[in-house]
């Protein structure tokens, strides 16, 4: 009787593992792509896209392309993988775990310099969405006013626009300002720990506008804040871009073909979101985003502003903006004295071949890829983004 006990224990553990695996199995279906490929496709190509973060309107174009069947029209079966705190999209791409990844250009170039053979094939965001937000009474209207202030930044390579702006304004980042590590939320700005906080137009800036001003009992308004835009200051760095494996582009014709189709359908998705901001925000909410409805629509609208109008066609990599990004990445030293890049990126770091072919494909389909008549909508943020 007693000697059986150890084996009962072992048997229990094994049975448990089987049961748990069995009941864990049904959860993976939620992320599975909807396979609605039209009959015209002989075969569909499975494609994995790695996002930088959770499902939100920042990535609406890709979700719209899945939802509206744009990928399926190109015979692609796209699954979208969410990011996380420690998931580095370009690393997942370089490791071969995904087919395409989204990444900001400076970070991806740093990975490329470290040996990851990844290539920018479509510059979806044409402009930088980084701001430095401060209360009106601080009187911070340009980077020169940062002097002597507590300047919040996220670190991890997100601080280089700030440093470039400081350097341009003739300030020494190490001596003339106090740099404060900032959290994901904007509580430190509201509490006064930070005089000017780093914020994305499409996310953190909305968060402060959704918070309640304790003095009035109502939400803060844009009139309560000064905003410094790094794009306007001329130190904007290129952000969300689609990256592909350089090795596979060079050696695998089928992959290159897939890349053209993928970029085309993605841009088609973004064009859909440009013309249907509300519908796209709803698609993202339906995909399980935890952000409130008005926050989501605000984000959609702000992201549209970063993409449209695209004078050279959506996704085209503008050599001037690329060179400016690379230059800032090489020349701006952070507090530790290091730069993002130690040398200029090689010419193979980006290619317009894929996006040119993709745009030609879309022109043939009658999709407006320039959006010259784009006009942003007006979004009213509700309390807590609801």
């Amino acid at each position, binding site marked *: 009787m007693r000697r059986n006990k150890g084996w009962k224990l072992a048997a229990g*553990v094994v049975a*448990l593992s089987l049961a*748990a695996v069995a009941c*864990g199995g049904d*959860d993976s279906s939620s992320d599975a792509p909807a396979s609605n490929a039209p009959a015209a496709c002989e075969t569909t190509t499975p494609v994995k896209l790695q996002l930088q973060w959770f499902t939100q309107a920042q990535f609406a174009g890709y979700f719209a392309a899945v939802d509206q069947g744009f990928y399926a029209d190109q015979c692609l079966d796209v699954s979208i993988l*969410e990011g996380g705190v420690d998931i580095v999209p370009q690393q997942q791409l370089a490791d071969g775990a995904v087919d395409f990844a989204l990444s900001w250009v400076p970070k991806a170039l740093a990975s490329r310099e470290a040996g990851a053979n990844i290539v920018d094939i479509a510059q979806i965001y044409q402009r930088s969405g980084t701001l430095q937000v401060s209360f009106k009474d601080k009187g911070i209207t340009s980077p020169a006013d940062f002097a002597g202030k507590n300047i919040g930044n996220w670190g991890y390579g997100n601080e280089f626009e700030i440093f470039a702006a400081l350097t341009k304004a003739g300030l020494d980042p190490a001596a003339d300002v106090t740099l404060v590590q900032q959290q994901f939320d904007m509580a430190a700005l509201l509490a006064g720990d930070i005089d000017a906080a780093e914020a994305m137009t499409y996310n953190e800036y909305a968060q402060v506008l959704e918070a309640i001003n304790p003095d009035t009992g109502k939400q803060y308004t844009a009139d309560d804040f000064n905003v410094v835009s790094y794009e306007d200051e001329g130190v904007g760095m290129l952000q969300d871009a689609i990256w592909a494996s350089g090795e596979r582009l060079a050696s695998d014709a089928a992959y290159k073909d897939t890349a053209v189709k993928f970029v085309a359908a993605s841009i088609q998705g973004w064009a859909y979101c440009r013309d249907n901001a509300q519908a796209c925000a709803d698609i993202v909410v339906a995909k399980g985003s935890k952000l409130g409805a008005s926050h989501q629509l605000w984000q959609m609208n702000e992201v549209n502003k970063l993409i449209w109008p695209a004078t050279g066609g959506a996704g085209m990599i503008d050599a001037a903006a690329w060179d400016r990004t690379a230059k800032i990445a090489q020349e701006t030293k952070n507090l530790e004295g290091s730069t993002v890049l130690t040398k200029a990126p090689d010419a193979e770091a980006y290619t317009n071949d894929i996006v040119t072919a993709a745009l030609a494909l879309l022109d043939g389909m009658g999709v407006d890829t320039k959006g010259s008549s784009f006009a942003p909508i007006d979004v009213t943020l509700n309390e807590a983004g609801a």
Partner: protein
Amino acid sequence: MTTETTMKKSEATRRVRRALLFVLSLLLVAGVWEIYKTVGPEAGGKIFGWKLLPRSNNHAMPHVWDMLTRYSRPELRGSDRKIWSVVLAGAWFSFRLALVGFAIGATLGLGLSILMARFKIAERGILPYLVVSQTVPLIALAPLVVSWGGKLHIAGWTWPRWMSAAVLGAFLAFFPVAVGALKGLTSAPSASLELMDSYAASWWQTLRKLRFPAAIPFIVPSLKLAASASVIGVVVAEISTGLKGGIGRLIIEYAREATSDPAKVFTAVFGAAVLGLAMSGFVTLADMYMMRNRPKEASA
């Protein structure tokens, strides 16, 4: 007969007392929280020049009742899903992952301990690596596991994303089991081992009939440690890899809204605490079941 009923009675009163004490301690924590909120400095404070006193404003420390009533309000305005059901669903999701991780970790730990108990050379070779393995930070390992998993395709079976979190739970869980069980398997008195030898019992027979039963008192506490370790592993992995559905993911998603809805993140944090309690309770129940026929040692 009478002694048995009195024993049962005292057992029952002890349980009631324990439950009361638990509730009391919760109330005490809530009380201290609220007292600090009233007397503590709104904007934080310094002691001897060090910023030690936390802020007591509603952003940093929401009222206890705000956090509790948050549970009964919808997760997002306009949605009819109350936050308690979202948090509960998240905790249940993470609980299942932790169970998978616990099961894998316990099996692996037991296997390794048997190997090490059987071959001295295995113990010398493996044990240092086990210790080293626990010094690798989980957040460094998480993206690697996700990346390896993303490349795995075995006969049409693809590695689901949640498996990475379960594996990281197992990574933390196997260690206490391996070490505890090894200690237990080598704890049989040498007189008993010699007796088995004199019966010409094989090593496996000795393992089954002597070493394993002797190891149970060592294995059970190590399983308790493994249970809570697997919860930590899963929650950290969820945060780290952004796995959707679990309590870890809820914690970061809600933390992002702390600017405008500070009570929300606490609902998920309490959910994680309940998850940990549930997991260790689960092992305690299993322990009580397995130990039910053992003579009770004199309890202090």
